[in-house]
């Protein structure tokens, strides 16, 4: 697949994903903004393995921006713009607290996992690939590692309340 084909497919998927989270108009705006970033800022990225995760990252940022914009515009609490603080270029305390709470929830959830899942996550966090994990855990089939990881991730997601956010 060349870059245009990948971007076309990405647009379709991004729009569908955004529509499932926000309204259709907002979803189209989000999709358009994401595609614009990919076109304008990353024209040199053409590989599938790079372009897709990049699209996910841009999309997420755009959704966070849209969320903040809605907050600023008072779409949720109808506060005046003058009452809101000025935007900071760095991470705002809310974002920092959000991340800190997310990490704490993740630590708590991981602590509740079984020994094998913890071992698996540890190896993954250490940057080991699945084939390496397969050797380290002395398994003959890599599918076993895939299955274990799938189950452990489901368990971790359940322990975190069903969402990574």
């Amino acid at each position: 697949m060349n870059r245009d084909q990948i971007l076309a497919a990405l647009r379709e998927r991004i729009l569908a994903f955004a529509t499932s989270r926000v309204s259709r108009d907002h979803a189209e705006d989000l999709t358009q903004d994401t595609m614009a970033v990919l076109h304008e800022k990353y024209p040199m990225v053409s590989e599938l393995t790079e372009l897709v995760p990049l699209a996910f990252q841009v999309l997420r940022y755009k959704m966070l921006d849209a969320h903040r914009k809605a907050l600023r515009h008072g779409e949720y609490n109808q506060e005046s713009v003058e009452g809101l603080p000025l935007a900071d270029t760095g991470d705002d305390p809310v974002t920092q607290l959000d991340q800190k709470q997310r990490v704490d929830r993740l630590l708590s959830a991981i602590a509740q996992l079984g020994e094998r899942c913890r071992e698996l996550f540890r190896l993954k966090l250490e940057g080991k690939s699945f084939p390496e994990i397969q050797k380290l855990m002395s398994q003959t089939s890599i599918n076993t590692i895939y299955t274990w990881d799938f189950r452990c991730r489901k368990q971790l997601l359940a322990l975190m309340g069903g969402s990574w956010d």
Partner: protein
Amino acid sequence: MSEHDLNKLLGGFAANTLTAEEKQQLYSAALQDQELFNVLADEQTLKELLADPAVRRRLVQALQKNSSTAPSSPWLDWFRRPAGLAWAGGLAATFFAIILSTRIYQDSVKEAGRSVAIEEETPAAAPAPSVTKPTAPSINEPRLNTQDSAPSSVPPKKNALADKMAKRETTARAMPEERRARNSATDSPLQQLEQDGLQKQTGSTSDKRAPSNEEASASADHRPASAPSTPAMTPAPTKVPTTAAPTGQVASALSARSMFYGERAEFDTALMAEEQEPSQSAQRSGRFEQKKGALVAGKPAKVTGFTKPLGIRYSLMTSETKGPHSDTDGGSTNQAGSIYLIIDVNQDGYLQVWGETESLQHHLLFPISEDEQLSSKLIAHQRRTIPVAAGHGTIILRFSRILFDSSTKQAIVLSGQSSLGQLQESVTTDETSGSHEQTTYVVNQDLSVPELMVRIPIGKP
């Protein structure tokens, strides 16, 4: 890799540990599958979180701390695996099954041993001729061998049956006095004496196991096949060797006694056992009495018919040993020095008793001559006591299925010979006074002969 399997690569996406090939597969699939794309988009949050080195380091430390705080031994790890648990469960189940089966086996062996012990406590009920006839009918030998063999070889069913019978016997043992009192009203004095003597012997043998192994085995050999396997309390009365019949006695494996009581009919076995063992079960006794009642009511042919050989059981008693409560036939009263002939037959028939004296050759003693009857009907297993006046040298008994007429009377009596083919056997029981009471069984083996004749020299019955 199928789309389902591609979902398993999501973990590597968040941790950013996928290989280039895995990434290619996952992202290509995500562009084709909206659900997978949505999941990847959701995972992006975790991916960003894990992309922070500080967070990553913190998570790794937490995981390592958990691992160090809860060190798992290889044994525990092994047990945590499903296969290990299955193995452990299987081993535990096998272990409990072995223990359970061992206990059941031990219980069954104990039960078998207990039943054998009960059987040994009650000396084997043996028909009297068993001692005199060591060669048992071959049909009974395997049964004896089975009994003599190790108790563990007894099948559980048989053990249960033997145990049940032993229990029944125990309950019956509790009321021998009652039964004796009941029997005393119906039995003859000889039977009472026999039973008393036997009971004493039972008491003595139960302590010292008086009957030797040979006797016990021989008794068991002669136990009729249809007889219940319950061991009787019979002490195997002292035997005298089978007295040779006055006429030619056919050597046979069967004894006169066993033939007298028959081999097939159940009630005959019961009768024999009834006579031998005073501690027989009340249930069997009741059954016997019922059947005996049926016999009295005139239904013996259904059970025995003419397939059974004619048989007489007789014993002679003096007036001193007979006792005052005897019932006598023949219309005479007790006289000093007179002899009492106690007769029992194994089937309904007609009886004549003839006497011989020096002065008077043949004269009818029973029924008495004045009755103008040439014979008196006897009912099977109903004992009759006939007084015989002193002075007779010989008594001749005639027992027939058919009525006697005058011609046969003269012909046979005058011939002065007993019937041919008769089997005779004498059984002596010890009495408390030291004297011996001798009972003689005479059976005609020839089924075609409707008559049985016995010549009894007085003084040597």
